[in-house]
């Protein structure tokens, strides 16, 4: 739609056209930037794996096969299996309403969806304790019926849903707004039903946006610490997620085991970054072609 020039990404512009600094300044700036990133990003990442394998592969594998570690992995997987689909469904629904229709209060709604991002994780956990805890709003009723939410698995899942609430929605809203609704309208005029339109037209268009949102949502779900720490109650083998288990091992001076478990999460982070880069590139490509 736009002028043909705009289709060529800036990075492909002939380099000669750009005004730039002398080579010496350029390399100095690159060196400073890389030194800073090495110190703050690469070094910690290397340290996780180095500490984990410090005492050899067999110690590493033994640490991972400890029953408490296995049960924390199981709990984290259960949490993710519930949290990610719920927030995915919400994200797609909210993006459909916000991007394809106009209505008053839309900006307020977007701000409210983003809200969990600006709330401290500790507060995200606290609010569920205030509602479901023993001194909370419905705590006494819950206790009378022997239902445990806080300091149990449901609380962990609720707090995680809160923290990762905006991830999918905030990725899809701008993408679907940029794509407009011409294609959906064409499908409907040609006789497709609403669901057919969504699954055959909208979904393929937002596929990479969804993958991007889901992978980030999943990373945060599996890695959330502050909010989960408040609602978990830290019962070993029962309500410890993987990050909480890392904390316990670390505080017991069991460093090798702590870093072994942490290396699983660091590995997950690396996969997340790789998938995210691919998804980002695909979304750019898709938007550039329109």
């Amino acid at each position, binding site marked *: 739609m736009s002028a043909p020039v705009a289709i060529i990404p800036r990075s492909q512009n002939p380099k000669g056209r750009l*005004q730039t600094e002398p080579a010496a300044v350029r390399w100095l700036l690159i060196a*400073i930037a890389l030194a800073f990133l090495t110190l703050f990003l690469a070094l910690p990442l290397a340290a996780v794996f180095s500490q984990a394998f410090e005492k050899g592969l067999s110690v590493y594998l033994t640490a991972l096969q400890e029953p408490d570690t296995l049960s924390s992995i199981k709990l984290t997987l259960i949490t993710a299996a519930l949290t990610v689909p719920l927030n995915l469904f919400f994200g797609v629904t909210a993006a459909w309403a916000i991007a394809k229709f106009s209505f008053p209060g839309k900006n307020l709604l977007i701000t409210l969806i983003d809200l969990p991002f600006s*709330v401290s994780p500790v*507060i995200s956990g606290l609010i569920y304790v205030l509602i479901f805890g023993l001194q909370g709003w419905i705590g006494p009723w819950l206790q009378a019926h022997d239902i445990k939410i806080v300091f149990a698995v449901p609380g962990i899942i609720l707090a995680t849903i809160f923290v990762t609430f905006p991830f999918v929605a905030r990725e899809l809203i701008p993408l679907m707004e940029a794509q407009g609704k011409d294609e959906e*309208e064409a499908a409907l005029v040609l006789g497709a039903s609403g669901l057919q339109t969504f699954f055959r037209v909208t979904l393929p268009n937002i596929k990479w946006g969804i993958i991007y949102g889901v992978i980030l949502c999943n990373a945060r779900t599996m890695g959330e610490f*502050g909010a989960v720490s408040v609602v978990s109650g830290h019962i070993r083998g029962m309500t410890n997620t993987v990050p909480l288990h890392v904390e316990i091992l670390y505080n017991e001076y069991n460093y090798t085991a702590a870093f072994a478990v942490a290396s699983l*999460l*660091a590995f997950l982070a690396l996969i997340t970054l790789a998938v995210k880069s691919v998804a980002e590139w695909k979304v750019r490509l898709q938007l550039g072609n329109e």
Partner: protein
Amino acid sequence: MKLFKRHNNVLPGFGLSIGFTIFYLSVIVLIPLSSLVFRTAGLTWGEFISTVTAPRVMASYKVTFGAAIIAALINSIFGVLVAWVLVRYRFPGRRIVDALVDLPFALPTAVAGITLATIYSPNGWVGRYLEPHGIKAAFTPFGIVLAMTFIGLPFVVRTVQPVIEEIEVELEEAAVCLGANRRQTLQRIIFPMLLPSILTGFALSFARGVGEYGSIIFIAGNMPMVSEITPLLIITKLEQFDYQGATAIACVMLLTSFLMLLVINLLQKWSRRYAE
């Protein structure tokens, strides 16, 4: 005449999708958050003020906000440099470095916390070189700054980077044609265009630092009055079953984050105006 209903929109599902959106938002976010306000309302004004201005609480604000400002400043300077280098210069491994910038988003905070504490401890990879110079990093407020710098870094880079990508080469060429040297172009043309995004990145990085918990508690040492951050104080109060105290302090923090959100929204409006 169905065409003219719903603001000329033929797409189906508006009622259903907006209904579910508002329902889910209320159940997960709005009602739980409101519980904080209602619980605080149970306190008298005097109780509230004395709780949130107690010496130990005031000291925690000073540590938290002070460290967050320093970390956001470090991130603003190096974040702009990293964004500039990534967009404007070509060097081997640039794509990998670009992807690595998001590591603090992807790496769980607890992992970041124990790793930073290990690296900067007196016999760690970096700490052993700081120790002879009398610099103690881990288990001091300086450690808090380090952790906040780590988690806030992507915010500045990712807000400034797209703005640098969008800068029209023609503007720089025009400046050169009109006789500006490189320093003048950077100072008078490029910097003013980047300023709104730099401030947005600063605010985002600051807000994240203030609320951060997981990566800090391992490296902070958590000494009351010295290196105890406000989120930790909330948890401490909670563990002592002082629900009122925890809620009151949380309310102050929530108010601060709303203020930051407002500032960030205004900044983003300002930078969008610049972009047009």
